């Protein structure tokens, strides 16, 4: 158990590529923090710096009360779950779980006890003597988790651990990871590019863009008050409508170069609403439908209950107080 503190961390790769810059995060003991952002934004790089697999070019990383910049991965007291699981293919599941303990000269009896415990928690007992290649994707995923928990480390690091699973299994495993972390109360950093996964798992979200932090906050804070148009468009599904101020001059707001954001679920059909939308396409989701269209040349999406066929034009109203205002640079004003 430990806190993790990143202070102005930056990474410049050997070729001169800057992958991460000026990242500061305080992660409390037992907290589940999710790093989320689009592909290539530096999530893995940041996580790998915490793990010690990548050198830290700038700033400091503390785990517990130690600065770990120059400490080997093995001595940082962390465990990592890799995207491809990185199970040792020539070892049985049991050996995979025990390997880290064996290297640390844990007594045999203790190893057996912990492996049995982990197998029990993750329900992989029946497969302990199989090789990883004889397991399904979901079972491999569990073994990878098992390898992390037997070590009882100060922190778990996850790098997109669910991205190789099919959609349904991903939802199940997501829940299991959440429950496991609740139960073990181990500080965790979890990397994903899936905003839904991020929202559901996180105690706190860190939204990254091009190697820098856009916003840190609880999922609801980030959802309700996105700090920038980038966060607004990234968090929430379907994505928030971002309409240039010029296209809707009659809506409230000040900055003329700015942007107005309205979540699709905050728009409703109203005969006297201030917005007129030309309907272009409808996606039926069952209980709900997504209506895509345009107003003043700006694309607009609305969620509404499914029902009868729609007219060509709709008048829309927004829920009071639901407008997000951003300035010319895309930063939140209100």
């Amino acid at each position, binding site marked *: 158990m430990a806190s993790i503190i990143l202070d102005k961390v930056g990474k410049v790769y050997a070729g001169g590529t800057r992958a991460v810059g000026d990242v500061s995060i305080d992660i409390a003991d037992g907290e589940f923090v999710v790093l989320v952002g689009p592909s290539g934004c530096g999530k893995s790089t940041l996580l790998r710096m915490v793990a010690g697999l990548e050198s830290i070019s700038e700033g400091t990383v503390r785990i517990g009360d130690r600065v770990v910049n120059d400490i080997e*991965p093995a001595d940082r007291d962390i*465990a990592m779950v890799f995207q491809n699981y990185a199970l*040792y*293919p*020539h070892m049985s599941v049991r050996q995979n779980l025990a*390997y880290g303990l064996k*290297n640390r000269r844990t007594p045999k009896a203790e190893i057996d006890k912990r492996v049995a415990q982990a197998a029990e928690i993750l329900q992989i007992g029946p497969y302990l003597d199989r090789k990883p*290649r004889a397991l399904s994707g979901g079972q491999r995923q569990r073994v990878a988790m098992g390898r992390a928990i037997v*070590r009882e480390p100060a922190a778990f690091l996850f790098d997109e651990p669910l991205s190789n699973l099919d959609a349904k299994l991903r939802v199940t495993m997501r829940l299991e990871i959440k429950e496991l972390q609740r139960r073990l109360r181990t500080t965790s950093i979890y990397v994903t590019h899936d905003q839904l996964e991020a929202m559901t798992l996180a105690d706190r979200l860190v939204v990254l863009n091009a190697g820098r932090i856009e916003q840190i906050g609880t999922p609801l804070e980030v959802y309700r008050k996105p700090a920038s148009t980038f966060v607004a468009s990234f968090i929430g599904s379907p994505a928030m409508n971002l309409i240039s101020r010029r296209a809707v001059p009659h809506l409230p707001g000040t900055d003329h170069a700015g942007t107005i954001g309205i979540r699709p679920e905050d728009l409703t059909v109203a005969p006297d609403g201030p917005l007129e939308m030309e309907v272009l396409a409808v996606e039926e989701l069952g209980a709900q439908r997504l209506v895509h269209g345009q107003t003043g040349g700006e694309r607009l999406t609305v969620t509404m209950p499914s029902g009868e066929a729609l007219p060509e034009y709709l008048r829309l109203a927004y829920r009071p107080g639901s407008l997000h205002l951003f300035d010319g640079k895309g930063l939140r004003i209100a």
Partner: protein
Amino acid sequence: MKRTLFRNQLLPWLLLAPQLAITFIFFLWPAAQAVRQSFLRQDAFGINTTFVGLSNFEALWNSPEYLNSLQVTAVFAVLVTVLSMGFALLLAVAVDRMIRSTSVYTTLLVWPYAVAPAVAGILWWFIFNPTIGVMPYFLDAVGYDWNHISSKTDAMTLVVIASAWKQISYNFLFFVAGLQSVPASLREAAAIDGAGPVRRFFDITVPLLSPTTFFLLVVNIVYAMFDTFGVIDATTEGGPAQATNILVYKVYFDGFVGQNMGSSAAQSVILMLIVIALTVVQFRYVEKKVAY
């Protein structure tokens, strides 16, 4: 796989004919001849041939010279294989770390393989020549009197180095490819699991490399036993006192120089059996998993 249907029954055979002819003329026919001759004995003038059954093989079994050659071959093959594979692995591991930055190094290391065995033999013969070579000069400086013409050990060392040298580049390429196919995340996971570099190498890399290693093992043994004729012929000619007279060289020497066709043929039949055995082993184990 794509299937082509020939309407004409003759055409496929015609297309195959050149390859079949080559296989027959250069492989099957000589092999059959060798098997036939191994059961025959020619008189001193090559006029009369008589069927002698297995007595050529029997003679080999009772010949101290042949048994010595067998032993020499075993020692030679083991040394060449261990040396060339060991050194190649060392180089491959070194290169694996920097492979993404440069391929020039890789290219350079492949050069020895393009050199014919006889040329390689001559090259090493010059380097190690007791009177004009550069190595004996250096060895002399550290107090070693190098002479592969009279010393059995020196002669063996020379042919082993000369033979292994050529094979290193081949092994190197396979080892590099093998190492590249070990996912980096496995080594990283092991690093987090508390394994140091040496431990990672032996616990993760070596087992995952075992299919490559096994394949190379067979290839190198076959190479050392059969493909090193040129090296031996250009350097020691089997001497001194039979110390480097490996089986293939003895086949040639007894047959073409000594004109003892029956014995030579029997020897090549034995060699053939060894190749077949190695091939079977190869297929058996490469098909199955080797370590995982």
